[in-house]
């Protein structure tokens, strides 16, 4: 075929989403492409905007927990925990030790469940059908435990200001121990299936690279930041609840590409299982709620609390005016901040890699739009 240099070429605009299955929700992006290369892209969010922050101002503190369930709907416990910690800090409540251990066990298992969901769907994004079946089978075991503990598979509303809703079932400890054994095997199975698969490596190695300085400037946190080589983990840098009592390592990537982001998450799942095991060993009997007023009414003041979510660093800035409803509540959503770097990662990438890069960020749109 002959080329005609005198012919004018224009970048083609391509719309992707919001109903595209690989966008993990309702996310739309507009890509400008030159042949196979992405010249520029623009993300469009807001399809799931419910005004959660404003809604919080009309609900009492106890009710706000239910709204936090609906932000990041695949790691509900972690969301509930960070909000309750903010209120507890403002009211100076000492959480009973047993409640903290149960919270941590549930949160860390939630991290494993979330990473398993990522592993399965990310493999789908990269063109592998099988791992999603394995990952969902393992995730189902965790969901069954949640159902036994809180009565719900997704919107638990289990962590309360000051402690937890109720005592866990009598067979909780042996059941979690058995679950740990099953999950270790299960995560390893998924890991073996996908991590060093040659096709998967070819799809993800060196794709969507972001260096640590740029990542910090964009406000990336969680696995996305650690993949770029910076070992920042709230559980280590600002330990909260019982994290000072447990030992774990923070897996760190090398190049900041899609494979590193994937690998960091898989390693984190193993670490979370270790944390759960240590919690089971250290946990003692005791109360699960402190002596406190039934209606939380924090004194005037403001507080900023953040914690490690499976997706990154979730923060809550809470302003109280002394009533039983928050005056202003701002959520710092990790997915939202991670998504801002998408444009940087996608520049000059192949159009076929767009889905792989987006998937590696592991966004949850409920949290991005709020």
């Amino acid at each position: 075929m002959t080329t005609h240099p005198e012919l004018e070429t224009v970048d083609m605009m391509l719309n992707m989403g919001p109903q595209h299955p690989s966008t993990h929700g309702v996310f739309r992006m507009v890509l400008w492409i030159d042949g196979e290369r992405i010249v520029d892209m623009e993300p469009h969010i807001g399809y799931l905007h419910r005004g959660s922050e404003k809604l919080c101002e009309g609900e009492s503190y106890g009710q706000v927990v239910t709204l936090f369930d609906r932000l990041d709907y695949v790691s509900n416990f972690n969301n509930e925990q960070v909000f309750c910690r903010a209120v507890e800090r403002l009211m100076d409540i000492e959480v009973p030790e047993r409640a903290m251990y149960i919270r941590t066990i549930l949160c860390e298992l939630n991290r494993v469940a979330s990473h398993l969901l990522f592993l399965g769907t990310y493999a789908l994004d990269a063109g592998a059908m099988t791992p999603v079946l394995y990952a969902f089978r393992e995730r189902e075991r965790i969901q069954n435990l949640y159902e036994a503990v809180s009565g719900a598979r997704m919107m638990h509303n289990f962590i309360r200001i000051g402690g937890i809703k109720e005592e866990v079932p009598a067979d909780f400890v042996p059941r979690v121990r058995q679950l740990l054994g099953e999950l270790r095997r299960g995560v390893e199975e998924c890991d073996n299936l996908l991590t060093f698969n040659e096709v998967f490596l070819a799809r993800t190695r060196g794709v969507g690279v972001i260096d640590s300085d740029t990542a910090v400037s964009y406000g990336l946190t969680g696995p996305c930041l650690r993949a770029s080589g910076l070992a920042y983990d709230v559980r280590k840098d600002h330990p909260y609840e019982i994290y000072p009592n447990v030992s774990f390592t923070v897996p760190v990537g090398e190049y900041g590409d899609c494979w590193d982001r994937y690998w960091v998450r898989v390693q984190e799942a193993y670490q979370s299982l270790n944390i759960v095991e240590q919690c089971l060993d250290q946990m003692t009997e005791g109360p699960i709620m402190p002596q406190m007023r039934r209606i939380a009414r924090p004194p005037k003041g403001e507080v900023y609390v953040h914690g490690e979510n499976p997706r990154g660093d979730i923060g809550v800035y809470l302003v109280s005016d002394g009533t039983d409803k928050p005056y202003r509540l701002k959520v710092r959503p990790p997915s939202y901040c991670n998504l801002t770097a998408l444009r940087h990662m996608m520049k000059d990438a192949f159009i076929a890699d767009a889905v792989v890069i987006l998937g590696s960020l592991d966004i949850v749109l409920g949290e991005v739009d709020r």
Partner: protein
Amino acid sequence: MTEQDKPVSEPEESAPEGAADETPQVEAPASARPARRAPPHEEEAPPEVLNSRGQTTLGLLMRIADPYVLAHGGRDDIPWIETRAQSLIEVARRCRDHRDLDLKMLHCLLVVDYTEHLQAVYVLLSPVKGTRAILKVNVPADEPKVPSLTGLWRAADWYEREMHELFGMEFEGHPNLSPLILYEGFEGYPGLKSFPFNDYNEF
């Protein structure tokens, strides 16, 4: 309400009692219904105290931003300083580039509506050193204007767009303050306290 304010010793037993006490309130006519917001807590608020790490951070902040600081305070290891809008960029740049503070990440940006004035709150964080600090800027509600920090942090781009959309805060120097999360054609600033939102009629 007084029943509920008592410390609860046995939640399982007292829960039905509390529920029984609440029923007459629900049935009261709409005109006699108490104000939507419960009265403030009578207890004295505990003073906000900084720990030793927070004191060190505050000392560093005061040293680099001394002429610009209007007020300061903090809780735990997160100190806050208040500056004027015109000196915000300078203070933020010094925070970011200081070797010991190393506040390289703009962690969170929010606007609080205090009806007579708006407050922009910038939470800064160092992923390497672990220091945290908060910058606050008060601006009048009728002319909410602060300089944009997009030149310092790329993360400021979306944060500022969102806050502009929800609170009408003007970020001077922002390259593109187009709507981000609300639907096209939405009018008003839903984040503001004056926006009618919680006063809908239930049916």
